[in-house]
C-alpha cells in the first residue's frame, strides 16, 4: 500500500508524490485529512477515514472535502447519516444517496434545510412530516413554485418562512398578505418581490411595524420612501434612513429630532457636506462616533473630531480610511491606548508614526503593530518574542512577517500560535514540513493542507 518514501528535496514546493509518500509513511489521519482537501489520493483517503472515530469526525467537519463525504455516504449507518445530513459541505449526490435509504424524519429535515439539496426540494416539499416541509420553506434555494405550494398550507412557521423566502413570487406574497397575521404581513412588505399595491396599502397602515418593514423594502418606490422618511414614528424613519435605495445626499437636510435616527444618518455614505458638519458637532456622542468613522468626512472635520473629548470618537477617527497622515501622527500619542491601537493597525501609517508606536507597552497597541504589514521586519521579530502570547500571535496574521519571525512562531510554546501560523496561505515549505510533526493535530492538519495546496497549484500550473 505504501508508496516508496520519496525524498523531500530543497525545492520551494514539495511535489505531490513526495508529500503523499511522507504522509502515508507517517500514517497520521489529521495530516492525511489536511492533504486530502487539496490532493486526490486513494491511500490518503483511506488513512483519513481509517477508524470509526475518524469517519465520524470527517462526516461532521465542514472543512472536509466533498469527495470524502461522498465516500462516507456510500455505506453510512445512522450516526454517520445524521452527521452527513447536517454537514454543510456534503455534496448534492451524497444527499440524494442518503435520501434513497429512506432516512427518518429528523434526517430528512436536515436534508430539506441543506444548501445543496436543491434538486430534492420538490420531493421533500410533499413530505408527510410538517417539520420537513417547514425546513423546505426555510431553504433559501426553494424555487418559487415550491414556495407557492407550501404557502397554501395553514401553518404559521411555513407562512413566515415563505414570506421571507428569496424566491417567493408576487402572487404568493399577495396570498400571504391577505390570509396571515401581522408578523407574516410584516415580512411580506419587506420582501423585494412585494407587489406595489400591497406596499401602498402597507404605507397607510396604522401599525408602525408594517410601515417600518415597508420602509426597509429595498425595492420601495422613491416617493414612498421619501414620505416614510418624514413618518411620525422614529423607528419607521430609522428604517427609511437605513434603506440603501435612497442615496445619502438626498437624506433630510434639516436634521431629525431623534438622536437614534441621527446616528443612522451618520452611518450613511455620500452625505451632503452641511449634514456632515452638523452631525460632527452633534451633542450625542454616538452620532459623533459614527460620523468620525464615515469615509466621506473631509480632513478638516476629521481634524476637529480627532480632538473630541470622547476617546471613542478619536478611536473612530483613527479607523477612518480617510484619516490623513498628520492626524494619525497626532492620534499616535493619544493618552488612550485604544486610540493608539487604532493607529497601529493602519498599514497606511507613515513610517514615523509606526516608529512612534514601537515603544508602546500596551498589548493592544503591540498586537496591532504585529499584524501591520507596515511594521519594520526587525520589530516584528521582537514582537514575535514578546512575553505575552497574544501579542506574539499577532505576527502570525501579518502578511509581511519575515521568515525569522515566523520561524520563532513555529517554535512557540502556545499551540494556538502555531495553529494560526500553520493556517497561513503563504506558509514557507520548510516551516510547513517542521509543523507536520507538531504535537497538535490541528497544526499538523493545517501544515499538510498548506503543503498539499502548494503541490496541487504547481501541478495544475504545469499542466
Amino acid at each position, binding site marked *: 500500500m505504501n508508496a516508496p518514501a520519496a525524498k523531500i528535496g530543497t525545492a520551494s514546493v514539495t511535489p505531490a508524490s513526495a508529500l503523499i509518500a511522507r504522509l502515508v509513511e507517517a500514517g497520521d489521519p489529521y495530516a492525511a485529512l489536511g492533504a486530502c482537501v487539496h490532493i486526490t489520493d486513494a491511500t490518503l483517503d483511506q488513512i483519513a477515514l481509517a477508524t470509526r472515530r475518524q469517519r465520524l469526525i470527517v462526516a461532521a467537519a465542514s472543512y472536509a472535502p466533498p469527495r470524502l463525504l461522498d465516500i462516507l455516504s456510500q455505506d453510512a449507518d445512522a450516526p454517520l447519516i445524521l452527521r452527513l445530513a*447536517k454537514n*454543510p459541505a456534503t455534496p448534492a449526490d451524497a444527499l440524494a444517496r442518503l435520501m434513497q435509504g429512506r432516512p427518518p424524519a429528523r434526517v430528512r429535515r436536515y436534508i430539506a*434545510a441543506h444548501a445543496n439539496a436543491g434538486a430534492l426540494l420538490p420531493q421533500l416539499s410533499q413530505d408527510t412530516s410538517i417539520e420537513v416541509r417547514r425546513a423546505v420553506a426555510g431553504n433559501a434555494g426553494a424555487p418559487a413554485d415550491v414556495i407557492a405550494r407550501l404557502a397554501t398550507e395553514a401553518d404559521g412557521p411555513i407562512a413566515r418562512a415563505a414570506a421571507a423566502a428569496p424566491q417567493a413570487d408576487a402572487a404568493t406574497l399577495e396570498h400571504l398578505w391577505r390570509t396571515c397575521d401581522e408578523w407574516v404581513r410584516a415580512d411580506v412588505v419587506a420582501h423585494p418581490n412585494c407587489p406595489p399595491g400591497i406596499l401602498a396599502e402597507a404605507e397607510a397602515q396604522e401599525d408602525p411595524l408594517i410601515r*417600518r418593514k415597508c420602509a426597509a423594502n429595498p425595492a420601495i418606490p422613491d416617493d414612498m420612501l421619501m414620505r416614510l422618511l418624514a413618518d411620525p414614528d422614529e*423607528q419607521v424613519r*430609522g428604517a427609511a434612513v*437605513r434603506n440603501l435605495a435612497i442615496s445619502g445626499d438626498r437624506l433630510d437636510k434639516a436634521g431629525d429630532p431623534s438622536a*437614534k435616527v441621527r*446616528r443612522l444618518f451618520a452611518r450613511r455614505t455620500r452625505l451632503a457636506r452641511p449634514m456632515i458638519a452638523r452631525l460632527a458637532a452633534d451633542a450625542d456622542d*454616538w452620532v459623533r*462616533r*459614527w460620523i468620525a*468613522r464615515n469615509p466621506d468626512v473631509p480632513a478638516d472635520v476629521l481634524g476637529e473630531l480627532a480632538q473630541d473629548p470622547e476617546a*471613542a470618537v478619536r478611536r*473612530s477617527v483613527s*479607523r477612518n480610511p480617510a484619516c490623513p497622515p498628520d492626524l494619525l501622527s497626532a492620534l499616535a500619542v493619544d493618552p*488612550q*491606548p*485604544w486610540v493608539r*491601537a487604532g493607529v*497601529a*493597525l493602519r498599514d497606511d501609517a507613515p513610517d514615523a508614526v509606526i516608529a512612534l508606536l514601537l515603544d508602546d507597552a*500596551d*498589548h*493592544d497597541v503591540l*498586537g*496591532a503593530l504585529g*499584524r501591520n504589514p507596515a511594521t519594520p521586519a526587525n520589530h516584528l521579530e521582537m514582537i514575535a518574542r514578546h512575553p505575552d*502570547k*497574544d501579542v506574539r*500571535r*499577532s505576527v502570525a*496574521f501579518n502578511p509581511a512577517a519575515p521568515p525569522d519571525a515566523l520561524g520563532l512562531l513555529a517554535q512557540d510554546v502556545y499551540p*494556538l500560535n502555531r495553529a494560526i501560523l500553520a493556517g497561513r496561505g503563504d506558509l514557507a515549505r520548510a516551516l510547513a514540513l517542521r509543523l507536520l510533526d507538531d504535537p497538535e493535530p490541528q497544526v499538523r492538519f493545517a501544515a499538510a493542507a498548506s503543503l498539499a495546496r502548494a503541490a496541487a497549484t504547481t501541478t495544475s500550473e504545469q499542466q
Partner: protein
Amino acid sequence: MANLIVIAEQRDGEFRETSLEAVTAIRGIKQGDDKLSVAIIAADPQKHVPALSVEGVDEVIAVKATDDFQPDLLEALIGALVKDRAPSVVAVAHGVDAWSFAPTAAARLDCGLATDIMGLKLDDGDLVATRAGYAEKVLVDIDFPGKETVLLTVRTNAFEPASGSGSPEVTEMAPPEADVATTHEGWKPPADAGGIDIGGSEFILSIGRGVGDESNVEQYLELAESMGATLGCSRPIADNGWLPKARQVGQSGQLAANCKLYIAMGVSGSVQHQWGMKHVENIVAVNTDPEASIFSIARYGIVGDMAEIAEELENLF
C-alpha cells in the same frame, strides 16, 4: 465538639472578601458546641481581626509573618493546625492561591479533599460537599469516608460573604517552620482594561466572527450600551484588533464570573469560548447555523442573522 477551621487570605496586606464566603460555607455545618476558627497569616494580622469578627466565628488565629504570598508557609500552617487541633474541616477560598497549597497539604496530611465546592452539608453527621463535574455538566456530591480531616476549597460567589457582628477570641500563633521554596517577587497588577470589566459584569452581549467586518462592531458597542450590557467578544474579534483584548471571553481571555445573562451573537461556541461563559444561567444564542455548538448550552436560541436581530433590539432599547 468539632474544630472547624477557615484559612483567611490577604493580598498585599488587603483582606480578601472571598475568605468570608468560605466562613459562610463552614458556618452552615457548624453544630452545637463546634468551634469555628479563622487563621490568617499577615505582617500585621491584628489589622484583619475586625473584618473577621463576624457572626459564628469563635476564634481568630493571628499568625504574624509576612504579607507576601508564601504557599509553603500556608501549607505548613495547615499542617500545624491539623496536628494540634485535629479539625474535621479546613476550608479556604478556591482560586490560584489555594491551588498552590491546598492539594499538596491534603496529600501530605492524608486528608479528604474537594476543590471548588459550591455546596456543603451534613448528611446523618457525615460531611457531603457538592461540586460540578464533567465540565460543569453535572453536580457531584462527594463524601469522605474514613477521613478525619477534610480540606475544602470554596468556589467564589457560591456563598454570601459572612456578615453579622461577632466577638471572637484572638489567639496569637507563631509562624510554623516551613521549607520555603518560593520567593515572592511582588504583585503584578492586571493590565489596565480601560474600564472594561467582563469578570464583574452581570449582563454581557458578546459578538463573534458572525459580525463580519470591523465596520459593524461599533453597532454592537452602541447596542450593548443602550441595553446596559458590557460588550464581550470571541478570540478572533480581539485578534483582529476590532475590540480590545480585555473584552475577549474564554480560556485565553476573561471569565464572565458574575454574569447572569449572556447574549452570544455570531459566536459558534468553541470549547475555549465556552470556558469563559458556559456556567452562566441565562445564555441566549443568536446564530444563522442551527447546528452551532453554542445552542447546546443556550437556554434560549434564535436561528437568525445577528444584524437583523440587532436591528430589532435597537428598536426596543
